[in-house]
């Protein structure tokens, strides 16, 4: 998977969305792919310093909480740490940050802030493109 580039858009902010994004991203990075994620709109919750530690289950799906515990899945906090350790490129959407009045300091360390064009530039030669 070296020489494989993965470009992901994370546009939703529930716990389910976080697992979809970070499981695929860390599995790809652990397989030596180059991985970049563009976090936009509700997706910004996934990298917000506080919000990512306590993401909501989707409405009506609260009963899955027990299943997460039983399956011993890693916490999102842990997956974010692994993503950083594996050098996954994290781009936060400038426009959404402006709309929501959020500064770069509100997010986890090591992120880049950019617009849609930044993501397109990164993704233009990606082998795999995913949107969650």
């Amino acid at each position, binding site marked *: *998977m*070296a020489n494989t580039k993965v470009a992901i858009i994370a546009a939703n902010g529930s716990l389910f969305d976080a697992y979809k994004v970070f*499981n695929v991203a*860390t*599995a790809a990075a*652990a*397989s*030596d792919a180059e991985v970049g994620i563009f976090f936009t709109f509700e997706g910004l919750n996934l990298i917000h310093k506080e919000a990512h530690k306590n993401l909501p289950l989707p409405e009506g799906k609260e009963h899955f909480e027990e299943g997460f515990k039983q*399956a*011993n*899945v*890693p916490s999102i906090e842990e*997956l974010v740490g*692994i993503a950083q350790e*594996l050098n996954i490129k994290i781009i936060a959407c400038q426009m959404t940050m402006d709309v929501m009045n959020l500064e770069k300091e509100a997010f986890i360390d090591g992120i880049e802030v950019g617009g849609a064009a930044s993501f397109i530039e990164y993704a233009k030669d990606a082998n795999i493109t995913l949107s969650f």
Partner: protein
Amino acid sequence: MESNKFLDAKGFACPMPVVRTKKAMEDLNSGEILEVHATDKGSKSDLTAWAKSGGHTVVQDAEEDGVFKFWIKKA
């Protein structure tokens, strides 16, 4: 089967067996063998796919009492 390093990934869910295997593999030299034990049912296909993607070879695998065992030779 003989191995150079052992990784106990039992109890971990996706994607941790793969993430931990990647980290453990970094300590080995080419040709050395990592033994991994996992209980995640997805690990059977995932670790096989992971090895393939890195050019590593699964030289042996086994399943005993719900534990999936792999011996992976580093590329």
